[in-house]
C-alpha cells in the first residue's frame, strides 16, 4: 500500500546552519515542515546566577560572552545599569569612545550576519568579503583594548583604555573604505535574482505579530515599526548625532536584509560624527570607588544592540554583589516566533528564515 509518513528530523545541535549549538526538532512530510520545536540551552552557562557572587566589575567579562559578535553593547548595558543605580556621571571622552566602539561592533556584527546568511543560502564568497572588513574592525578594537572578541573594555564610570595615538585617524579612514565595500556588496548580492527569489516573501509576519512576540531590532523594524532605542530613549550621547532609523513595511526576510544593510550605513554616519566631535582630552574614567556598592533598590536599563533591545535588570541590596541580575537577551526573544514561521515551509526556507532572525546562541542560552 502506498502511503506517506511523517519524518522526525533533528536539525542540529551539529548542523552547519544553526549558527552554533541550536537544535530544532522538525516534523516533516517530504520537505514540508509540519511542526518545529526549538531546543535551546546547549550553551547555557548560568551567567545570571554566576553574577550573584561577583562584584560588579567582575561581571563585565561575562557579558562579553553573551552576544559575542557585539560584545561592546553588552559591556555597555551592564555598566550603564550600574552607573544609573550608583548615579555616576561618565566623562565625555569615555562616552565618545563607548559610542565609537559600540557602532564599530554593530557594523562587525551585521557583517557577520550578512556573510553567514549568504553562506546559508549557498553563496560562499560574501562570507569571505564580509570577514575581510570585519577583520579590520576587529584589529581596530584589538588595538584599543587588546582583545579581538571578548573585549572587557568598559568599566563602571568609563572605559579602561584610552585611544592610542593615530587610532581615531584609522577609524576615520575605515569609514569611506567601508562605504565603498558596501557598494560592492550590493553589486554582488542585493540585485541577484536568485537571492531575491530566496528571501522575498519568505518568513513574513505582520506588525501586530511582531509586537505580540516581543520582537525587536531589525526583526521589528522590518514590519514598519520605527523603534530604535538610540532615538526613542536616547542613552549615552546618541542625541548628539543625526542618523536615520531604516524601516520597511513587508516584514519578510528581504526587508530584514535591507534594514540591516542600511543600518550599517547609519552606523557609519554616527561614527563619522563621533570621530569629528571627539574631545581632544579629558578623563576616560569617572572617579569611582574601588568597590562599587550601588544603593539598595533596582534598575532596568535597555539599549539597542545589533540584534534588538538588550536589557539589564539589577536588584541590589546595597552589597558589592548584585542580589539579582537579569539580562533581556534579544536573540532569545526574537527566536520565539520561529516555530510559527516555520509551519508549512520547506527545508530550504527553514535556513532562510532562521538566518534572517540573526541569533547568537551565546545570547539565546545565556
Amino acid at each position: 500500500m502506498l502511503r506517506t509518513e511523517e519524518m522526525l528530523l533533528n536539525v542540529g545541535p551539529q548542523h552547519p546552519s544553526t549558527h552554533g549549538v541550536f537544535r530544532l526538532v522538525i516534523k516533516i512530510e517530504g520537505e514540508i515542515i509540519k511542526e518545529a520545536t526549538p531546543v535551546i540551552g546547549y550553551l547555557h552557562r548560568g551567567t545570571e546566577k554566576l553574577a550573584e557572587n561577583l562584584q560588579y566589575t567582575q561581571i563585565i567579562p561575562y557579558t562579553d560572552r553573551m552576544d559575542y559578535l557585539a560584545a561592546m553593547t553588552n559591556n555597555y548595558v551592564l555598566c550603564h545599569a550600574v552607573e544609573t543605580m550608583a548615579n555616576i556621571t561618565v566623562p565625555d571622552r569615555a562616552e565618545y569612545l563607548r559610542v565609537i566602539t559600540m557602532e564599530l561592533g554593530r557594523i562587525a556584527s551585521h557583517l557577520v550576519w550578512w556573510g553567514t546568511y549568504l553562506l546559508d543560502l549557498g553563496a560562499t564568497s560574501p562570507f569571505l568579503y564580509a570577514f575581510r572588513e570585519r577583520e579590520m574592525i576587529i584589529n581596530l578594537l584589538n588595538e584599543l583594548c587588546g582583545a579581538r572578541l571578548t573585549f572587557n573594555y568598559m568599566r563602571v564610570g568609563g572605559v579602561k583604555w584610552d585611544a592610542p595615538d593615530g587610532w581615531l585617524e584609522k577609524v576615520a579612514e575605515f569609514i569611506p573604505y567601508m562605504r565603498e565595500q558596501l557598494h560592492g556588496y550590493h553589486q554582488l548580492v542585493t540585485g541577484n535574482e536568485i537571492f531575491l527569489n530566496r528571501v522575498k516573501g519568505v518568513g513574513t509576519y505582520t506588525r501586530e505579530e511582531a509586537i505580540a512576540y516581543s520582537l525587536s531590532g531589525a526583526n521589528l523594524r522590518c514590519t514598519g515599526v520605527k523603534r530604535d532605542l538610540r532615538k526613542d530613549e536616547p542613552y549615552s550621547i546618541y542625541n548628539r548625532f543625526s542618523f536615520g532609523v531604516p524601516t520597511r513595511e513587508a516584514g519578510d526576510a528581504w526587508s530584514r536584509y535591507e534594514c540591516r544593510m542600511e543600518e550599517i550605513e547609519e552606523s557609519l554616519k554616527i561614527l563619522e560624527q563621533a570621530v569629528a566631535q571627539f574631545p581632544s582630552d579629558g578623563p576616560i574614567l569617572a572617579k569611582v570607588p574601588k568597590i562599587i556598592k550601588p544603593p539598595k533598590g533596582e534598575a532596568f536599563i535597555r539599549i539597542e544592540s545589533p540584534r534588538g533591545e538588550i536589557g539589564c535588570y539589577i536588584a541590589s541590596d546595597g552589597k558589592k554583589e548584585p542580589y539579582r541580575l537579569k539580562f533581556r537577551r534579544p536573540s532569545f526573544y526574537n527566536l520565539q516566533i520561529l516555530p510559527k514561521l516555520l509551519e508549512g515551509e520547506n527545508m530550504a526556507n527553514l535556513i532562510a528564515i532562521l538566518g534572517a532572525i540573526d541569533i547568537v546562541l551565546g545570547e539565546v542560552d545565556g
Partner: protein
Amino acid sequence: MMQELLQSAPSWTKVGIFFGLAVLFLFVVLGFVTFAILSERKIMGFMQMRIGPNQVGGSWGLLQTVADVLKLLLKEDTIPKKADRPLYILAPVLAFAPAFMVLATLPFTNQFQFADIGVGLLYYIAISGITTIGVVTAGWASNNKYSLMGGMRAAAQMISYEVPLVMSLVGVVLLAGSLNLREIVAAQEDIWFIFLQPVGFIVFFIAAIAELNRVPFDLPEAESELVAGFHVEYSGFRWAFFMLAEYVYMFAMAALTTLLFLGGWHSLPFLDFIPGAVSFALKFSVVIYVLIWIRVSFPRLRADQLMEFAWKVLLPIALANIFLTALLKELF
C-alpha cells in the same frame, strides 16, 4: 585513427594499442580531475581573496590534490550499521562508471575519438542519466534522513533538467543534420553554433550546470541545508568516487559544450595555425573557468523554484528555439 583500428582485422597488437590508448586517456582524465580541483581552489581563492593550497608540491600547491586523494584512500571505510549494505556499496560505482563511459564518444580532435557512433549525442545524454540513479541509491541506502532528502532532490532535479537539456540540443542537431558528434563539429567549420544558436546555448549551459549539480543548482548536496545531502554517510574512497564522478562529468560537460557550441577543434578563421587539440583545450578551459566563476558568484536556488524555472522558463524557451530554428532553416 580509432575508427581504422576498430574496423581493421583484429590482432593482439591492435588490441594492445587500443588498450594502451585507453589507459593513456584515463590518465589524461585523472590528471584533469587532479588539476581541475586544484585550479578550482586556486581560482576560488583568487576571487575570494584567499591564497588557496600552497604547501604541498611547491608554492602552487601542485600536489595538494594528490595528497588529498592519498588521505582519502587511507581513511577508514565506514558503513553505517543500518545501511542497505549491497546498495550502499553499489551506489558510488553506479555514479562514477557512466561518467567514464560518456567520454568514449567525445571527439577531442579530428583524429582522437574512441567510438564514432552515429547517435553519439543521444548516447551521452542517455548514459549520463544513469549517474542520478547512483545518487538516488546512495541517498536511499545510507538510511539517513538528510541523504534521503538529497537523493530525492537529485531525482527531481534530473527529471526537470534532462528535458530542457535535450530540447536545447535539438536546435544544434537540426542545424548539423546529425546526432554524430564529429559531424556536428564538422558542420561548424564556418561558424560556431554559439552564434547561430545563442538561445539554445544559454538554455543548454544552465541545464548543464544543473546536471552537474554545481552552484547554483547544488541542491542534492546543499551543505547549509542537508549537511552534505546524498553523501552524508560516505567517507574515504567511496566518497572520493562521488567526487571523482562529479569532476569527470565536469570534464565531459565542458568538452560537450566545446563540441556542440564552440566549434570543437576548429580555430577562428584567422588563427588557423593553432593545432586542433590546442584550440580544443583552450575553449575547454574557458568553459571550466566560467563554471568555477559561476560557483563563486551565486547563491543556491530553492527546490521548488528550480522546478518552476526548468518547466516554466527553460522548457518553453527551448521549444520556441526549436520552432524558430526549424522555421529559419526551412526559409533560408
